[in-house]
C-alpha cells in the first residue's frame, strides 16, 4: 500500500526562481554562507556522535535523528531576530543547535546529566533554551502547536515585532489541536508561522496513508484564510526566501503563514525503529542521500559560487567533529542529578522558596 517515493523523485530541474537572488539572500556575506554550512555540519556531527553513544547504551529513551533535514532548521532559524521565537516537536536537536545552544549542554542532556540543558530531566525530546528564544522540544505530537500560538500572542500583546516559528511533522497535521490553532491564528491575526517539515513519513506511515488532501498539506490553510506555500527544503536559499516572506508578513501585518517544507530523514523514526528500512526501500533512502542531501547540495553551491574548497570544508567539518567529541567528553565527565533533584523544577514557588512555595504540602511522598 505504501507508495515508493523513490519512484517519484522531487523535481530536480532548474528552479523556476533562483532563490539566491531573493533580497534576503542576495546580500549574504561569504562568512554567513559558510556559517550555514557550519551550522548544518554541527547538527550532523552532533547527531552522528549521539547515535554512536546511544548504541553504546549511554542514553535512555528515544533518539529521533534530524539527519537529512538540516537545511530546514538552519535555513529558517538563521533568519530570526531579537523578537523571533521558535518551538518544535521531539525531533529537536537541529533546532536547538540552530539557535546556538552548545553541544555540551545538549549532549549532557542526552546522557541524562545534571549539566544538560534541562538538567537531565527532559532528555532528547525536551531541549530548551528560552534565553535563545527556543521553547523546546515537545513530545506529544502537535502539542506544541498552540504553544507557538501563545508565544506569538504574547509578542503581539507586548507590541513587539516578532513571530514564532512553530514546527511540526507531516504526521502531526491530523491532530485536532493544530486545526484549532490555525483558526485562532487567523481569526486573531497572530504572528505565528507554522512550518510542516514534511519528511514524507510519520513513523512507518507514508503521508498518503495518513492525510487526505487535495494538493498538499499546506493547502488546508485555505480553509482558515491563511497564506501558505510549499518549499523545496533541500535548497537553503529557497527555505530562507520563503520563510522570510512569511516572517515579514508576521512582522508587518501580524498575519500567520503555513509553510510546508519538503525534506527527508535518513534514519528510522527513532534509533529504536527496527523497521526503518521496511516501510521504505533502502534504494529510496540511498536515492535521497545521493541526490537530495541538503549539506552536499549547499556545499556544491558554495563551491560553484567559488567560496568553498576542500580545505575550507575540512576546516569547518573538523571544527564540528571536534565540538562533538568535546561534548561527548563533557557529558561523560558530568555528574548525574542527585536523588533530591527529582523534586526540584516542579513548582517555581517551591524552587525559589517563596512564601507561596512554603504553605501546605506540595509533594506526597514521605
Amino acid at each position, binding site marked *: 500500500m505504501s507508495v515508493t517515493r523513490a519512484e517519484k523523485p522531487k523535481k530536480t530541474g532548474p528552479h523556476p526562481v533562483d532563490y539566491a537572488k531573493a533580497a534576503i539572500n542576495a546580500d549574504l556575506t561569504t562568512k554567513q554562507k559558510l556559517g550555514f554550512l557550519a551550522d548544518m555540519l554541527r547538527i550532523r556531527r552532533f547527531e552522528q556522535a549521539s547515535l554512536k553513544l546511544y548504541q553504546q547504551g549511554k542514553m535512555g529513551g528515544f533518539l529521533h535523528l534530524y539527519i537529512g533535514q538540516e537545511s530546514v532548521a538552519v535555513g529558517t532559524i538563521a533568519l530570526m531576530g531579537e523578537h523571533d521565537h521558535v*518551538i518544535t516537536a521531539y525531533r529537536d536537536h537541529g533546532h536547538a543547535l540552530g539557535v546556538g545552544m552548545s553541544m555540551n549542554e545538549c549532549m549532557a542532556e542526552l546522557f541524562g546529566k545534571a549539566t*544538560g*540543558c*534541562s*538538567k*537531565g*530531566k*527532559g532528555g532528547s525530546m*525536551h531541549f*530548551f*533554551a*528560552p*534565553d535563545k528564544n527556543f*521553547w*523546546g*522540544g*515537545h*513530545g*506529544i505530537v502537535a*502539542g506544541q*502547536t*498552540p*504553544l*507557538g*500560538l*501563545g*508565544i*506569538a*500572542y*504574547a*509578542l503581539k*500583546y507586548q507590541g513587539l515585532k516578532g513571530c*514564532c516559528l512553530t514546527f511540526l511533522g507531516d504526521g502531526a497535521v491530523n491532530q*485536532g*489541536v493544530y486545526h*484549532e*490553532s490555525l*483558526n*485562532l491564528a487567523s*481569526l486573531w491575526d497572530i504572528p505565528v508561522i507554522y512550518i510542516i517539515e514534511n519528511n514524507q513519513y510519520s513513523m512507518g506511515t507514508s503521508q498518503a496513508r495518513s492525510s487526505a488532501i487535495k494538493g498538499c498539506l499546506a493547502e488546508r490553510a485555505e480553509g482558515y484564510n491563511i497564506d501558505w506555500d510549499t518549499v523545496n527544503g533541500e535548497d537553503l536559499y529557497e527555505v530562507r526566501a520563503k520563510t522570510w516572506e512569511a516572517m515579514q508578513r508576521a512582522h508587518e501585518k501580524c498575519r500567520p503563514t503555513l509553510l510546508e517544507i519538503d525534506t527527508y530523514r535518513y534514519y528510522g523514526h527513532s534509533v529504536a525503529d527496527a523497521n526503518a528500512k521496511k516501510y521504505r526501500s533502502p534504494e529510496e533512502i540511498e536515492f535521497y542521500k545521493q541526490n537530495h542531501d541538503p549539506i552536499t547540495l549547499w556545499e556544491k553551491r558554495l563551491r560553484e559560487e567559488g567560496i568553498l574548497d576542500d580545505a575550507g570544508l575540512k576546516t569547518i567539518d573538523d571544527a564540528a567533529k571536534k565540538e562533538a567529541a568535546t561534548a561527548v567528553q563533557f557529558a561523560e565527565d558530568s555528574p548525574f542529578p542527585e536523588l533530591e533533584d527529582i523534586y*526540584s*523544577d*516542579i*513548582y*517555581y*514557588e517551591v*524552587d*525559589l522558596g*517563596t*512564601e*507561596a512555595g512554603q*504553605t*501546605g*504540602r*506540595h*509533594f*506526597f511522598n514521605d
Partner: protein
Amino acid sequence: MPVITYRQALNDALAEELERDEKVIVMGEEVAEYNGAYKITEGLWKRFGDKRVVDTPISEAGFIGLGVGAAMMGLRPVMELMFWSFAYVAYDQIINNAGCVRYMSGGLINCPLVIRGPSNGGTNVGATHSHTPENFLANTPGLKVVCPATPADAKGLMKAAIRDNDPVCFMENTLLYGEQGEVPEGDYVIPIGVADLKREGTDVSLIAHGRAVLTALAAAHRLHEEFNISAEVVDLRSIRPLDEETILASVRKTHRAVLVDENKPFCGVSAQIASLIQERAFDDLDAPVQRVCSLDAPAIYSPPLEALQLPTADRIIQKVLAIS
C-alpha cells in the same frame, strides 16, 4: 465587612488583578461581550477592553495551549473553562504542557497561568457536564488545585492564584455563585495551601472542600441540634498544596473523621485524605475514617435524583452516627 456573592467576589478579584497588573488577561468562551456564561466576568470587557478580556471560539485545547504559551512568555492569562468538564478536550494541554513544561525544561520555564471555571454536579446538566476533576488534576505534580467554598475564599484565593507563578486550576461551583458572605475589603489575598477551620468541634472532624463544606456545615449544625454531637468542619480550600497539618490536628483532637467530597469515590480526593489520616494519625483514630462522596454513577439528569446523588447532610449524619 461588605456582604457579597461568591460571583461578585470572583468578579472583584479579576477586576482588581486586571487593574493591578497589565500582564493579566482574561480569556475564554463568552467571557467578554456576553459577560460570561455564568456572569463571573460581568463588566470586565466593557471596563478593560478587547485586549485584556478576550472571547474565544470553542477550541479549549487551542486556547488553553495558547494560554500556556503566553504564560511561558510572562503573561498571566486567566482562562475560563465554561465548565471544568470541558477540560477533557484540553487535557493534554493542561497536564503535559502546563503541568510538565517546567520540569522538562529543568526549571528554565514557569507558567503563571490560571484555569478557572465551575466544577460541580447538581445542576441537572447530565453526566458529561458534571465532572469534578480536582482529584485528577491534583495528582499531577506541577499543577496547583484550589476549590474555594465561600465568597471570601473565592476572592482571596483567586488573587493568590493570579499572582502565583505556577499553573493553578481554580475550581468554582455554579451552585455557589449566588451564595453570599462577608468579604474583607482591600487587597485581600489568601495563601494557597492553608486550610480553614470553618467550625470548631470536639467529637468528629468533617473534612471537605468546595460546596461540600456547606453541606458539612449543615450536617454539623444538625448534629449539634439533634444529637448533641460537636462536629468540627475543616475546609481544605486548596487540594494541592494540601494543608495536612490542619487535617491531622483536627483528627488528633476529635479522633474521628468523616470526609465529604463531591468527587466520585474511586480515587476521589477523600481517598487521599483517608489514606493520609490512617497513615499519620493511626493511633489517634477511634474509628475508621468514613467517606461521603457522590453516589458512584455518572451524574443522573433527573433533578430529584441528582439532589440525592451528591453528598447530603443526611448521609453525613448517618456516617457520623455510625462511628460515634
